[in-house]
């Protein structure tokens, strides 16, 4: 007995001795215990999925969270007004860098997180920044600084009716030419449950709303919003071609009244089985696969956005992320929250429970992460988020104003007007807006 006891004591001592370096390395989540954080959230699938887990963060860190949730328009206005006032008490907020990033960075409102990321006492060793999909990391970088981690990613992609393509023996398009050919071939073919004809393609046509999805056509055609010297470039030859194609597709093979369609109207038409193809954000898949409202559940394929004539990729990478205002008095605690909310466990949780498209590659490789997401969507999303472009919006300060100016040209294209004139007019407007809003 005595010998056994000694062996036991020795074994335990050995274990403790071996474990102590690991213990020393273990990350201290309690380092900002007692702090109170004010977090502003946009009403969004990610917010809905993370909210039930917020208590876990409070238990882990001893930090108290005050989360406020607002519908998107009010949310954006509230953040802007608070930051403008210079006396904001926000510690963390949801942000789309391509929408407001440059404006906020130029105004000096955001606290970059580069230093936090490099600091081993503030960042858990298993956080692994490089696990985030490449272009989503890029999407979170404004003027060379990381403004926060991404929380959700989406691409402009091609959603199509597998049954319709099969029935009429049409090849799923992988290029823009094939996209137009398929739209033409399928337009007017019977495709609803009761055999009514549907449209070849549906997409957004409403002024500003259309620009973010038109971006994929623009990039695939080989153009982009601004040239490196920050002159408008979307009105060059390729840009005009993209506008013409977008307009032609919706005018000839799309539903009448496309000029007034936002994603809500467009996804309704597609979900009702009235269109063969739909180009929009693939994060709309829960709407399309909603058994209560959609008539095309299980019939839809999700593909990478078609390539351009020279093989260019068009898929956009739109990321929602978290950001921290410079005025936050609790930056260390705010970083702990950002880190916790985007750690692999949380990304896995929101993705497996609610189908929120996370930005971590490891989660996409985990079978649990794929449970609620169609396999072809996972495939196209991971590829799209590596090869796509984060420039789903023009990289300017006054994004909303420039989107309206460019959106007007999209409407002209859909209505069959003079696209070149409209594109040049939009470029002149964008130049003027940039001149006014980007004075240094």
């Amino acid at each position, binding site marked *: 007995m005595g010998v056994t006891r000694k062996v036991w004591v020795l074994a335990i001592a050995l274990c403790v001795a071996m474990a102590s370096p690991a213990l020393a390395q273990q990350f201290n989540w309690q380092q900002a215990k007692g702090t109170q954080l004010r977090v502003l959230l946009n009403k969004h699938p990610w917010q809905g999925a993370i909210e039930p887990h917020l208590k876990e963060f409070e238990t882990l860190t001893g930090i108290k969270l005050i989360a406020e949730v607002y519908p998107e328009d009010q949310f954006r206005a509230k953040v*802007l007004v608070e930051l403008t006032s210079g006396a904001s008490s926000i510690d963390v907020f949801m942000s789309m860098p391509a929408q407001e990033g440059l404006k906020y960075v130029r105004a000096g409102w955001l606290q970059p997180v580069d230093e936090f990321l490099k600091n081993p006492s503030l960042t858990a060793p298993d956080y692994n920044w490089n696990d985030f999909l490449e272009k989503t990391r890029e999407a979170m970088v404004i003027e060379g600084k990381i403004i926060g981690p991404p929380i959700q990613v989406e691409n402009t992609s091609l959603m199509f009716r597998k049954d319709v393509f099969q029935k009429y023996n049409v090849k799923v398009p992988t290029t823009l030419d094939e996209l137009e050919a398929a739209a033409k071939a399928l337009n007017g073919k019977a495709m609803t449950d009761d055999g009514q004809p549907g449209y070849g393609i549906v997409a957004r046509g*409403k*002024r500003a709303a259309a620009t973010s999805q038109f971006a994929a056509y623009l990039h695939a055609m080989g153009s982009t919003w601004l040239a490196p010297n920050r002159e408008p470039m979307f009105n060059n030859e390729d840009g005009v071609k993209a506008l013409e194609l977008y307009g032609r597709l919706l005018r000839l093979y799309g*539903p009448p*009244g496309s000029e*007034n369609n936002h994603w809500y109207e467009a996804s309704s038409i597609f979900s009702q089985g009235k269109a063969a193809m739909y180009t929009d954000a693939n994060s709309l898949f829960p709407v399309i696969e909603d058994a209560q409202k959609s008539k095309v559940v299980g019939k839809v394929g999700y593909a990478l956005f078609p390539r351009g004539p020279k093989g260019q990729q068009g898929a956009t990478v739109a990321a929602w992320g978290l950001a921290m205002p410079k005025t936050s008095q609790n930056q260390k605690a705010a970083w702990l929250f950002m880190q916790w909310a985007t750690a692999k466990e949380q990304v896995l949780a929101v993705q497996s429970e609610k189908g929120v498209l996370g930005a971590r590659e490891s989660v996409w490789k985990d079978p649990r992460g794929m449970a609620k997401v169609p396999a072809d969507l996972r495939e196209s999303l991971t590829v799209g988020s590596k090869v796509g472009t984060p420039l789903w919006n023009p990289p300017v300060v*006054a994004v*909303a104003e420039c989107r309206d100016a460019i959106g*007007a040209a999209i*409407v002209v294209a859909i209505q069959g007007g003079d696209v070149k004139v409209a594109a040049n007019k939009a470029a002149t407007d964008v130049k003027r807006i940039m001149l006014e809003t980007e004075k240094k």
Partner: protein
Amino acid sequence: MRHLGIGWSRFVERHPVPVFTLPSVVAVALLMAFPVGYTLYMSVHSWYASSVTSPHFVGLENFRRAFVEDDRFRNALWLTVYFTALATALQLVLGVSLALVLNRPFRGKGLVRSIFLLPMVATPVAIALVWMMMYNPTLGVMNYLVGLVGLGPYRWVSNAAIVVPALAVVDTWEWTPLITLITLAGLATLPIEPYESALIDGASATQMFWRITLPLLRPTIMVALLFRAIDCLKTFDIIYVMTQGGPGFASETLNVYTFQVGLFYFHIGYASSLLVILFALVLGVSLLLIKVRRGAW
């Protein structure tokens, strides 16, 4: 202290009207004077809400820019006038006609009158949403209805050429009852003597309408017109909900444009100057109509 109390109560007894209305007068003056004053102040400044620089004085630059450089503003100004003229004209003709019909004695008159007033009491946003469904080019009932008489199909609110008339129809549907109501009130006050004399002189019903009813009703109609013209100039809810100024900028009236500039682009200075212009427009039209009314009287 006692002396002061007695003095004060005597003062109140002697001047009850100014004393008791003073608090509300001050409150209203502050509530109106501050926003109006601040808008005027901002209209001569340039300031983006998200900019780090504070507002700087630019004089009348915002106004110059609106009239000289900003074609979106000029388009909005024209659309405001177009929408107002079309909507008020439609409402006036329909409203007065309806009032003349409803003024005749018939069974169930009270009930019919109440039903006609229903659109006016509904929420504009709800009306806009319902009309949006009715105007839907594929699913809506409007194309079915015009199809019955061999017209259409139309892309009602997505065709730049007809979006403003389509919106004017919605406004007309909602606000014609107001004109009917005011005209009915006017009809009730008309003297009976001129009609008796006309009858003796052998005038026809048409002659009596054009020579007696309409001239006597003119002041009433002018009041109705004034109300509707002011409202139409600043219509926002129907247009914003149904088209948000689209397609493109084809239905972007001054009010919608100002909203975009102020609350989407956060260009507060410029939006303020647009508001001042809108205010001047409303004031101008009101003064003009009042003058016409007085002349007619």
